[in-house]
């Protein structure tokens, strides 16, 4: 009996005590980063964002073309070329406009062949390649359109009286890796340039929203009282107005362009930011450290910038991460209705807009910028969701 009692109060061995060592204390930001790292989706989002930025910054190394180089002979070439072998391993590509290109060295060299016999009435184009006559007969196109079958052949290639309708092979376009647009500009170079413009607009517009929103919300929340009341009623009124209309209106008033988009987006969409900041400041300003700062004679400006805003940063960052995709979205939208950056500048939105008239034949021209827009928005959404969880002090462990 006695021994049992003593056993009950046996001393812990040293090792057991050590295993309960105090966890290293983490600052708010270290903890947030630790939790963000655990969130797979937001890390994927962050990865995509970094890749996109690298793509915008260094993408140029992968293409020898500049965004404004145009060559009308090389317009609307797809990334993969359906080729016909006309004998002796000579490959030709029939363009959707029924012109003929010589494909050499597995797609590393493309030459547009001169038409020798053009007949618009009978609908054929005649060529001579390697001493052979090659005729593209596109009189089938009208019938194919009527048949209601999208796969019906639109042309036949007649090589020395032999007719072909099905391509014999496929090679990658190594001259223009992602193809060309309707003016013969390299899509990859345009997409890289578009990434720069789209991301630039997104970041600048968000920065403008940030400054206006934080200042407005900060002042409103810190001063409080009647000033706060009036300032917030103004925000309420602005918030009920469909803001896109005013972005469009501003674009009409100042004239489209890179600067205008940044100004228009930044000056209109700050309302949410102002509300969030005000809410944060209202609760923070009652805390002791603010009182302490005031007691030692810190100016209002100093209290705002050094004490209040840094402590409200969590929700601000979350809403910033959500505003960037919004800006990209809106910019694409504006470009799409013809209020975007001016040619030859390009953003993803203008690229998508340019692709619409030729969508029927050259779908890749729309797909590429659309995929990039969607991917960027998705990545920022993932990151924003993760940040919201990571920066929420209530979820801190």
């Amino acid at each position, binding site marked *: 009996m006695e021994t049992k009692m003593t056993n009950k109060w046996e001393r812990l061995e040293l090792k057991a005590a050590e295993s309960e060592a105090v966890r290293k204390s983490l600052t708010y930001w270290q903890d947030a980063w630790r939790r963000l790292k655990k969130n797979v989706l937001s890390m994927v989002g962050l990865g995509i964002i970094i890749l996109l930025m690298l793509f915008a910054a260094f993408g140029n190394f992968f293409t020898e073309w500049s965004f404004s180089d145009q060559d009308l002979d090389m317009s609307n070439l797809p990334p993969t070329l359906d080729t016909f072998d006309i004998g002796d391993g000579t490959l030709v590509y029939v363009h959707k406009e029924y012109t003929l290109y010589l494909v050499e060295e597995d797609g590393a060299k493309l030459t547009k062949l001169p038409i020798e016999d053009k007949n618009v009435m009978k609908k054929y184009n005649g060529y001579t390649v390697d001493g052979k006559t090659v005729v593209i007969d596109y009189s089938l196109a009208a019938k194919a359109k009527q048949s*209601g*079958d*999208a796969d019906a052949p639109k042309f036949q290639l007649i090589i020395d009286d032999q007719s072909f309708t099905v391509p014999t092979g496929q090679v990658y376009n190594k001259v223009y890796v992602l193809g060309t647009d309707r003016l013969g500009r390299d899509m990859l170079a345009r997409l890289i340039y578009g990434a720069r413009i789209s991301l630039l607009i997104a970041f600048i517009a968000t920065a403008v929203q940030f400054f206006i929103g934080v200042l407005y919300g900060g002042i409103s929340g810190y001063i409080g009282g009647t000033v706060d009341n009036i300032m917030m009623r103004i925000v*309420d*009124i602005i918030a*009920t*107005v*469909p803001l*896109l*209309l*005013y972005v*469009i*209106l*501003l674009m*009409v*008033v100042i004239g489209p362009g890179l600067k205008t988009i940044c100004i228009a987006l930044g000056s209109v969409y700050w309302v949410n930011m102002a509300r969030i900041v005000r809410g944060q400041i209202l609760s923070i300003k009652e805390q002791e450290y603010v009182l302490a700062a005031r007691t030692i004679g810190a100016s209002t400006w100093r209290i705002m910038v050094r004490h209040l805003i840094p402590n409200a940063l969590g929700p601000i960052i979350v809403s910033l991460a959500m505003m960037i*995709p919004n800006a990209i*979205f809106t910019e*694409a*939208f504006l470009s*799409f*209705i*013809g*209020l975007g950056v001016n040619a030859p500048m390009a953003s993803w939105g203008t690229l*998508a807009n340019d692709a*619409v008239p030729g*969508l*029927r034949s050259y*779908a890749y021209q*729309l797909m590429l910028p*659309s995929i990039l*827009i*969607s*991917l960027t*928005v*998705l990545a920022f*959404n993932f990151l924003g969701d993760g940040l919201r969880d990571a920066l929420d002090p209530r979820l801190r462990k």
Partner: protein
Amino acid sequence: MGRYVARRFVSMIITLWFVITITFFLMHSIPGGPFSREKALPEKVLEALNEKYHLNDPLWKQYTDYLQGVVVLDFGPSFSRPGIFVWDKIQEGFPISAKVGGIASLFVIIAGIPAGVISALYQNKLPDYIVTVIATVGVAVPSFVVATLFIYVFSEKLMLVPAYGLEEIKSYIGPTIALAGFSLSFVARLSRSSLLEVMQQDYIRTARAKGLSELSVIFKHAIKNSLIPVITYMGPTIASILTGSFVVERIFAIPGMGKLFVESVGNRDYTMIMGTTIFYAAFAIIMIFLVDIAYGIIDPRIKLGD
């Protein structure tokens, strides 16, 4: 109740006035008049035009005249197309847009809410993953991409629906999907998270504890309350479906308000831009007002007297 409605009504009127004023002064701050062309008009013609459209009046007079006009729905004549009045064009375009937009809004409600509910009830199971993935992608893909892809796949490749116009019932499918896509995904996400939150509340446990069947717990107690944030969102949704129509109507060649607005922006038709902007804004503001009132009626927790 009456006081709440009255207060909201007054603030709606103030917002409308604000919209009209901002729009008016923004449009009048454009350098050069509405008739400045690349090739300058003869001075006499310009003067006659300015006289005809009262552009020589002092700005405040033009403003008060315009304000008076708007009250009786007179938005003045179009500047770029003589003989055409802004209000007539709006009356032509709006019913078409309203029809497409109405169908899209209905689609948002009847597809978005059930999707969110199913997703919440099967949390972390296959249906949830499917809904979440679709909704996440739906929020990220711009409406013009949805619209053009729809045309590309269903009219060009499969030839199932006409690519443009609204002659057949089938042709409503594309515009509806493109218009509703974003809001649908958003509503699905919103109703999912809202229902998940409600399901954890004490009164749900009480309902279960007193032996109600799971179905009646979900349908009678949980869903009703979880829909409140969704209803609040419906006002802005209608506004976003409206503004989404700028692009969708252009792509599907629907002769509605959106097309009118984009066209007038393209033509720099000042009065038309002003008229359509104010009309759009007014419509959205009135929708938000109505939703707010409905919200006040549905949710007894909101003190209407405040």
